[in-house]
């Protein structure tokens, strides 16, 4: 017995007879009217229906919001890169210090886990260039900081440590146009008088004429291209899968509605359009919710920093074309999806009542997608030239393989569930439910499995790429972390640095020496632009023995060290070609040496070569250019223990004091591993002695600067997608629980304790006591007694709770 159990079959008018329905067209009202009816049915029905629309809207909206973020990505990256480029140095045509030039050195510090970057600068004259976002250059001992760094300096927790490490007077704030993101920790420090800024000596020291020089990027390596494709595919697919799952929320209610519509005289095509109307409402609600979520997120984005990346609100501008495409594609595909999927479903007037076990899913066509996908991906070789065709092949292959997971999964779930047997009541209910109708469960699981399968693929590609782009180097055999400390001034002698390191009480052992970049006074092969460069290290024999394999050492000795990379083979970075030649004074003048130098091989300055601290060809006029020294004839060759100790190693007795004074104290410290605090304390102790010392921890050496960018993008994207997955699963679960009310009503009817069903009271008995009991399928005569008990319970519960 149905509540409104009268079935009608409208008759077609006889030939010549006017329609009895009065002017009606056979076949029904226009498609638009049916779409509108579907929309009306979706929205009508009070709070329950609105809740369903809200749930679907939220589910779709999460996906739409993330897709809108994806469309805004190009603008975000462009703006970031533009501002980064605007503050990069411009040293074109610098010949020497002038009124408009400035010395600049990169500043990088890690303060209690906060990465602070910036420049140490010293103008050569009265009209130096201004970096973007800075209105006045800081004087000696002053600094200009970004707003986020100002907050850090003023904060209670890490503020004191930050102030210890940046003991300069704050004279200004960097404007937004000079920062890559609102929460970037950035600083411009006016070099104190004692700090020495010399070109080519410590990394990133240069004389510039302005900011905003061109940044030349090499063509992107194949591995990075593959990585980007994988990242994009893996992050976008789950969004699509979850959005598709959300569009089909409330499937049971929809089936019931469609059966009723069929009962009232709609043909299957009309019923499909009615269903499409409902999907359209959901999708539009989703677009609205997505746009609202996006707008809210956009307004708040400036407050968040993910993996060191922060974004200005103004930069988040969805591309108009892509944004419109997303907002148009979601409703259109929702309607198309509904119509296509319902084509395979027979909507009968009594379709809900006579629900049969669905036909078994077939396997063969489900295998096509993953097999084709794998067939596309597997033959690819990273050593090949990765042109547009290969990129497309990889992307398509990955999409097909991942989509294959989603089509294969329903079959797998069905095959698995079919074999499940009896168990406790809850288990039995769950298993029976999955056996009869696992569509919605499968959809949710499919989306998760796409994400997981994608994540696994990503991990594999990432692991390979990391091997190629990041050298986890310079860890000692017993796992100590290593730090390189380069003093900022030659005034600080090596013993002061050694004292600072031991005073920190961290248990770090350091090899302290004087180090500097030296170049040949005489040009190579007669070309005035080419000079031989090398690292000159001056230390006592005990220290030198740790830097190179020396057979014998006495004060006054000089060694020319070759680089012998550790674990030579797969992990050798291309940047460190094997040492080939030691060039003496005679060979230096030979034009043939020029060819050797151009071939990329390392060339060592040998006996008789006159060396000078610094690089006179790059910046004539540096004060140290006068500190000259000639490599003695007795210099022995040796193998260095680390690539960075390749060069000229000398004992103090072999080098004039003037040259040693021009070198800078440098320490290579082994730090007990695993304690960030130890490293922090050491950094602090060094900063007390020399705040501008360049301290770098050798955790990893990155060989392409874009790799960390992609890695950050991946981390951020993964966090967002995982958030989407979590939120979508929550919404899906709530929606599924809502649909399970029928089962709960049955359980009530059979006497399940109320406490067990507390969650359902409001849903079941909120308004109409018997509505749920009578409407939820109590249509066979044998069950009417149970329905009556359900009603009685509801009614009794309602009256007892008022």
């Amino acid at each position, binding site marked *: 017995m149905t509540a409104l159990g*009268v079935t009608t079959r409208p008759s077609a008018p006889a030939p010549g007879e006017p329609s009895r329905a009065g002017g009606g067209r056979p076949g029904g009202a226009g498609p638009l009217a049916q779409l509108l009816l579907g929309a009306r049915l979706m929205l*009508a*029905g009070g709070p329950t229906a609105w809740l369903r629309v809200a749930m679907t809207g939220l589910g779709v909206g999460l996906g739409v919001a993330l897709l809108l973020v994806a469309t805004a990505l190009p603008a975000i990256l462009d703006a970031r890169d533009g501002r980064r480029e605007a503050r990069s140095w411009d040293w074109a045509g610098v010949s020497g210090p002038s009124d408009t030039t400035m010395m600049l050195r990169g500043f990088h510090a890690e303060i209690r886990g906060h990465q602070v970057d910036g420049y140490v600068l010293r103008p050569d004259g009265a009209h130096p260039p201004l970096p973007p976002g800075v209105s006045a250059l800081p004087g000696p001992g002053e600094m200009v900081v970004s707003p986020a760094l100002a907050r850090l300096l003023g904060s209670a927790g890490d503020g004191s440590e930050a102030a210890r490490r940046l003991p300069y007077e704050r004279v200004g704030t960097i404007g937004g146009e000079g920062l890559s993101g609102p929460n970037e920790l950035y600083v411009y420090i006016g070099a104190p008088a004692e700090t020495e800024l010399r070109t080519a000596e410590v990394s990133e020291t240069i004389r510039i004429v302005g900011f905003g020089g061109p940044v030349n990027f090499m063509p992107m390596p194949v591995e990075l291209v593959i990585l980007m494709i994988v990242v994009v595919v893996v992050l976008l697919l789950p969004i699509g899968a979850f959005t598709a799952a959300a569009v089909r929320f409330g499937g049971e209610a929809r089936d019931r509605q469609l059966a009723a519509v069929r009962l009232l005289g709609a043909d299957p095509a009309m019923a499909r359009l009615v269903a499409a109307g409902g999907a359209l409402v959901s999708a539009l609600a989703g677009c609205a919710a997505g746009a609202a979520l996006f707008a809210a997120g956009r307004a708040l984005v400036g407050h968040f920093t993910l993996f060191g990346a922060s974004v200005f609100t103004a930069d988040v501008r969805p591309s108009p074309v892509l944004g419109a495409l997303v907002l148009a594609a979601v409703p259109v595909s929702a309607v198309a999806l509904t119509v296509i999927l319902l084509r395979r479903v027979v909507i009968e007037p009594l379709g809900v009542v006579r629900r049969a076990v669905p036909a078994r899913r077939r396997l063969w066509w489900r295998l096509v997608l993953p097999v084709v996908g794998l067939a596309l991906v597997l033959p690819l070789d990273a050593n090949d030239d990765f042109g547009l065709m290969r990129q497309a092949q990889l992307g398509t292959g990955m999409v097909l393989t991942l989509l294959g997971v989603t089509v294969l999964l329903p079959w797998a779930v069905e095959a698995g569930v079919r074999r499940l047997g009896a168990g406790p009541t809850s288990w039995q209910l769950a298993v029976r439910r999955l056996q009869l109708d696992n569509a919605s469960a499968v959809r949710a699981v499919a989306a998760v499995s796409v994400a997981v399968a994608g994540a696994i693929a990503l991990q594999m590609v990432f692991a390979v790429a990391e091997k190629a782009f990041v050298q986890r180097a310079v860890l000692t055999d017993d796992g100590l972390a290593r730090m390189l400390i380069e003093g900022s001034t030659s005034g600080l002698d090596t013993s002061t640095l050694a004292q600072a390191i031991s005073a920190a009480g961290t248990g770090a052992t350091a090899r302290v020496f004087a180090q500097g970049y030296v170049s040949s006074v005489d040009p190579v092969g007669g070309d005035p632009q080419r000079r031989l460069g090398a690292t000159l290290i001056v230390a006592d024999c005990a220290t030198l023995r740790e830097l190179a394999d020396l057979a014998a050492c006495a004060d006054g000795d000089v060694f020319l060290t070759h680089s012998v990379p550790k674990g030579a083979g797969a992990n050798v970075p291309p940047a460190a070609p094997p040492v080939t030649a030691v060039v003496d004074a005679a060979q230096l003048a030979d034009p043939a040496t020029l060819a050797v130098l151009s071939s990329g091989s390392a060339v060592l300055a040998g006996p008789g070569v006159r060396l000078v601290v610094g690089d006179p060809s790059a910046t004539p006029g540096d004060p140290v250019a006068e500190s000259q020294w000639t490599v003695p004839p007795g210099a022995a060759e040796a193998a260095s223990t680390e690539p960075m100790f390749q060069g000229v190693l000398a004992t103090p007795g072999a080098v004039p004091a003037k040259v040693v004074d021009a070198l800078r104290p440098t320490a290579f410290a082994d730090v007990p591993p695993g304690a960030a605090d130890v490293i922090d304390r050491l950094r602090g102790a060094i900063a007390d002695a020399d705040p501008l010392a360049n301290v770098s921890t050798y955790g990893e050496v990155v060989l392409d600067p874009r790799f960390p960018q992609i890695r950050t993008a991946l981390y951020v994207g993964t966090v967002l997608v995982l958030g989407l997955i979590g939120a979508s699963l929550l919404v899906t679960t709530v929606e599924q629980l809502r649909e399970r009310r029928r089962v709960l009503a049955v359980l009530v009817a059979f006497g399940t304790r109320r406490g067990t069903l507390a969650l359902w009271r409001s849903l079941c008995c909120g308004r109409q006591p018997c*509505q749920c009991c009578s409407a939820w399928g109590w249509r066979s005569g044998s069950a009417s007694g149970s329905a009556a008990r359900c009603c009685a319970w509801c009614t009794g519960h309602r009256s007892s709770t008022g």
Partner: protein
Amino acid sequence: MPELTCAENVALPLRLAGIRRREAQRRALGQLERLGVADVAGQRPGEVSGGQGQRVAVARALATEPKAIFADEPTGALDSLNGEQVMGLLTQAARETSAAVVLVTHDARVAAYSDREVIVRDGRTQAPAG
């Protein structure tokens, strides 16, 4: 259709048959009035009594003036008074529009309204009567 009001429910088959909204509404209200439930036109089926609901269902069945009406236990959820009222209205309306009513019931009193009776027992028809 629990999502729609009673009037909209009655108008729905007319709308599906391609009749304009106003005309469908007018006819729906006429049907409801004829069956004595015009006062619940703006309410949802869940908000009216069983007898009223079933009368709305009859009005919806008659709305397109069909030649044949198939009714499955039309009085099953009603008490005997309401059941008789609904049957009276259904037969009266069917006679007015010259529609045939094919009705399935377990209730002998409901069956008595019919001009011709077919008894189905264990899937087999038994001696036709009337």
